[in-house]
Each structure stands twice: as C-alpha cells, then as structure tokens.
C-alpha cells in the first residue's frame, strides 16, 4: 500500500475533502444506487446553506439559547495539581443540553432537513447520546423521529432509551448482524433506501458517504473555534496539545479542525483499546484495523482476512464502532494527528479520578481521552497547556460503571 504512505503533504490541512468527498484516498460515496440521488440532494442543499447568513443565524440562535453555547473552557486545577505537569483545560461540551457534543450536529442537520422539506427523521445510535440529541431536535421542530439501536446497546444504555421515548421517538431494536452500532447504521440505511421520498438521515458521527463527514465536522467545529478563542482570552496563546476520544470521530474532528494548521499544536486522538489491542476485543480502527469500505466511505476498519467486518468492543458504547471517520484516516496517514489507544480499565481509572478531583462525572468516552492525559501531562512542563474535549457527561454510564466496579445500585 505505497499510495498510503507516500501521500504528499498538503499546503493546508483544512482544505479537504475534494469535490467528490475524498480526504486523500479516504472518504468518497460508496452507497447503493437508490441512495445516490438522495446523497447528491443532501450535498446540494448543504452547499447552498452552509454559508447562507439566515441558516447560520438560526443555527447560532439555537446553539446559544437552546443548547447553551458557548460551552466553558475550564481550568481543571485539582487534576492539574495531582498530575503534576502541564495545565489541563476541559472544553466542557458535557454541559450542552442533552449532555454531549452530539446536539451540535443534530441541530445543524435538522435545520438543513427542514429547508429541504423533509418530513421524517431517522438516526442510528450506539450509546444513545446521538439518539437522544436527534429525538430532542425532532421534538423541538415537530418532526417524527425513528432511532435504530442495537439490542445489545439497548440493554446497556437503558436510561437513554427511556429518554428517547419521553422525547417522542420510536426506537427500533436492531437484531441483525451483531446487534450493535454498525448494524444500527445498516438498518438506518435500509430504512432510508425504503423511504426515499420524505426521509432525512441524521448521521451521528463524522463518517458515512460524502457530504456527511464534512458536514458533521463543520457543525462540530464550533468546539475548536470556541476553545481557540477562549484560550487566547485566558492565556493569550495557543495550547501545546489538544486531545479527544474517538468513536466515529465527530467530537475529535470538531476540536481538531480549527487547529490543524497551527503547527505548534500537537494533536492526539484516543481510540478505545477495550480489553487490549492484543486481545482482539477492542474498537481501535486505526491502531488495529486496515483500510476498507463500509457505510459509504473508505476508511480504516476492523476486519477479518476475508474483508468481513469484525465486532468492536469497548466498555463505552459510544466508542464501540469498527470504523472511523475518513478525515481521521487521512490525518493518521499523513501524520498530522497521532492516534493512541486506552483500555477499558484505564478509562475506568480516569473516570474515577475525574469524579474525585473535579467533581465532574464524565462520560466513559471522554474518560478515554482523560486516561491518556493522565499518562502524558506529568511528562510535560508546568507552563505547557493541554485542552481536552470533555464531550459528554456520565449520567448515562453510572450503571455500566457500577457493574464494572462490582457495585450494586
């Protein structure tokens, strides 16, 4: 695969994708023909509205008054002291309405769907955060909402299932394949193929066929744009390191993208290593996968030596996906971003540490990013600065954590 390693460095890391949705060799539009006209329609609408002042004004209005943006950039002082190295800041997207970054994207997409005259919204969800964020905006804009969720995930994310129901969404349990997030996405695509007239598919991460990876990234980039401005106000400079967890990669690309061309800023993405990369039970597509094509894009995938997609494993349902957004695959190959992985056990330790030192119960997803912060902050100088995306709160995870810690609640 020499084409993978010889990619020339671009003038800007922020210019992708090309007009066919490619980030280097990644991305693209690998979908059934029935869907192609719909995908092209979404792309045309997106290109029309992405810089439309009225669209952007409406997005800003709801982001501020409904979601609660900007989210604070918070100096985690006690954690910093305990780690004894670089200053750690949290970008607190867990304070958003619905408790995670996911709503930045669902809000943007539903405003687009409204303008396209769509009458019905579908979504896939793993942890249930994206499902909740979609059900929320569907209630807000009065559109029916169908959420596909794997049986396995329904079991381990019961609080979110009930929240979606309260918000008026229909939850379709997915039993096909391995009954997790990838199968939920398959079933959502099957629904879309079968309801081409009136349905808009709100994809929950920066993956899928073009224009989704770009569109989701742009809606999530508010995270990095705010963080950059906030740190400039507080410290008068850029961070030395920014770091985020990766499921499909939307919170991470949202933080990273505005910093990609700031060469002094080191960038790290944290994948879920589950029971360990060698155990075969993990969700680290970059560290443990190979390039392939799934869900409309070429990207790194966990797959067998016959090209069959393998099941991912992570204690965090939101990271439990065998693929990753195509822009991350590209950033990995050209070396702009380093990707590491953190095990279930390490994430649990970080989860506890965050509760104890900062009084913040984080979601298990960002606990992965935090676990890596705990590894490297002590090795950095005290005048150096880290921004970590605290992209979700942990209310949804307390049962999972209790079980992992052997406690009954």
């Amino acid at each position, binding site marked *: 695969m020499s084409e993978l390693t010889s990619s020339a460095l671009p003038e800007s890391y922020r210019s992708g994708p090309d007009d*066919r949705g490619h980030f280097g060799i990644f991305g693209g539009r690998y979908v059934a023909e*029935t869907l*192609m006209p719909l995908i092209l329609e979404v792309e045309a609408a997106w290109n029309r509205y992405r810089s439309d002042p009225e669209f952007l004004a409406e997005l800003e209005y709801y982001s501020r008054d409904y979601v609660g943006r900007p989210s604070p950039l918070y100096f985690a002082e006690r954690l910093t002291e305990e780690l004894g190295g670089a200053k750690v800041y949290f970008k607190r997207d867990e304070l958003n309405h619905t408790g995670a970054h996911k709503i930045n994207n669902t809000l943007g997409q539903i405003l687009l769907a409204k303008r396209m005259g769509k009458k019905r919204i579908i979504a896939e969800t793993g942890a249930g955060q994206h499902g909740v964020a979609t059900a929320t905006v569907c209630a807000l804009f009065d559109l029916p909402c169908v959420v596909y969720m794997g049986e396995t995930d329904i079991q381990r994310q019961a609080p979110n299932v009930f929240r979606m129901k309260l918000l008026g969404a229909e939850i379709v349990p997915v039993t096909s394949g391995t009954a997790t997030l990838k199968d939920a996405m398959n079933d959502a695509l099957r629904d879309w193929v079968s309801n081409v007239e009136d349905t808009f598919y709100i994809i929950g991460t920066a993956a899928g066929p073009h224009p989704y990876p770009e569109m989701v990234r742009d809606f999530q980039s508010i995270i990095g744009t705010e963080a950059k401005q906030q740190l400039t106000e507080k410290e008068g400079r850029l961070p030395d390191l920014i770091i985020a967890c990766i499921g499909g990669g939307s919170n991470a690309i949202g933080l990273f993208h505005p910093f990609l061309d700031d060469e002094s800023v080191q960038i790290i993405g944290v994948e879920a290593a589950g029971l360990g990369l060698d155990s075969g039970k993990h969700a680290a597509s970059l560290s443990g996968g190979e390039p392939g094509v799934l869900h409309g894009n070429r990207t790194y995938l966990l797959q067998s030596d016959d090209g069959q997609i393998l099941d991912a494993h992570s204690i965090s349902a939101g990271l439990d996906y065998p693929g990753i957004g195509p822009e991350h695959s590209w950033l990995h190959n050209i070396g702009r971003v380093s990707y590491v992985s953190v095990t279930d056990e390490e994430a649990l330790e970080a989860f506890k540490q965050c509760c104890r030192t900062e009084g913040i119960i984080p979601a298990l997803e960002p606990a992965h990013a935090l676990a890596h912060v705990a590894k490297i902050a002590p090795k950095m100088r005290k005048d150096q600065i880290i921004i970590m995306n605290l992209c979700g709160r942990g209310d949804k995870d307390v049962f999972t954590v209790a079980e992992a810690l052997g406690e009954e609640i």
Partner: protein
Amino acid sequence: MSQRIQKRFEKLKQEGRPGLVTFTTAGDPDQETAQKILNGLPAAGADIIEMGMPFSDPMADGPAIQLANLRALGSGITLSKTLDMVREFRKHDDETPIVLMGYYNPIHYYGNQRFLDDAITAGADGLIIVDLPPEEDDELCHPCLTSGLNWIRLTTPTSDEARLATVLKNSSGFVYHVSIAGITGTQSADSVDVESAIKRIRKQTDLPIAVGFGIKTPAQVRETGKIADAAVVGSALVNVIRQGVDKQLAKDQIVTNLHGLVSELAAGTR
C-alpha cells in the same frame, strides 16, 4: 469481454422468451450444498445465475438475504472459496452466465486486480457491486471492463433521466432494474411503474433489461417477462434454504426443494 451473457440473451431472443435469473448466496447453507445447488440450476431452468458473495454487512439486503449471508459466513465461506465454486461449476457448464453480486469491501481487501484476474480465470462473466456507484468508477468499474468482465449496474425508481445516463454509461452485459425503492425481499413493485421505468431505460440503452426485487412467484415472473428481458428471483429461493435449515431437512432435500422452486418459476418464462 466475456461473451456468455450476450450469447444467452441472443438465445433467449431466438426462443422468443424472457430469461430467469436466479440469486443464491455462495456457501449457503454450506459450500458443498451450495455447490450442488449451483450445479443443478441450469437444468432446473435458470438462464442466468447470480451468486452472492457473502458480506457481514449487506446494507441493501432485507432479512432473508442477510440471514443467507450469515449462514454462509458461519459455514466458513470466503471470497476465494466463492471463486472455487465458480471454477467447479465451469467444469460442467461452459454456457450459463454467472454474475457475482456483492459488496465492495471483501474485494477491496482481496485486492482489486487480483480479484478480477481470479474471477475471470474461474469463469465468472460479470459483477454487480452494490456499493460502487458511478461516482467511484475508477475503483473497480474501469479495471473490470478493461479486464474483460461485464459491469452490471442497478437502475432504480430514484433514477431520473440524467441519472440514468450516468448509470448506463459504463454498464455492460445487461441492466438490472431494481423495481422498488427498498431492500431485497420486501414489497413487490407495481407493474405499471415498472413498465414506464423500462420504457425510459430502453430509450437510453440497447442492453437487455432484467427486473428484480420483490419477484417471488411464477405469475410474477410471467408478468415481468412481458415487459422485461429477464426476471430476477432471490429472496424466495433463499427462503427455501432457510426453511430447510430450520426444519433440519437433509441437505439433498434442500437442494431438491430449491431446484423444484426454480422449475416452477422457470415455467413463467415459457
């Protein structure tokens, strides 16, 4: 270019009847049984054979073919064994066209050119790759046509005139019209809609047109045969295998049952 597909449609034209295209999945319920199924299809009345290359995530397929994929993968089938099945079939039959249908990832992993070379050597005649639209023709479509394999594409109810032109541009062998906007094995199309779609497609191509999705009975085959050059039946056949497995029938009985249904369906073309 492989000529079997073209010759077969010429023969059908001479006989003055539409063709029956059967779809089954390689390795379903296991490789040995699937080979017996495959080998007996022409005698049972299949004019063209479509064989599914199993994939873990068949996004365009309904429950019946999803399960067929899982049964096949569970029995240990691989892409290379799928090609072995074609090779074995060709020992006995050098005329019936075989079209391999599937998703891109297993081929991508196998290596595109290596796959094309091996598929041709094995005796395949064409490919239908569901998740490779014209926008990605550089990937496999162009190399496929250069290598001498037919590239068969799907037209759908969502294809307008402009889109049809795009879809038909690099199509060869025949056109597969998907008669419903949906997944395999669910609802059946309205024959008026299909007829008008076929008229629109014929304006833009001289290739034969096969119609599929939702065709389950001899009567539906007959109806389809009046307006199209061939009818494709998949889920109904695959369900015979499922029922056989569920009832724990002897493998040879499953083969017999499946060929029995193919014969009934073939009556609709005669």
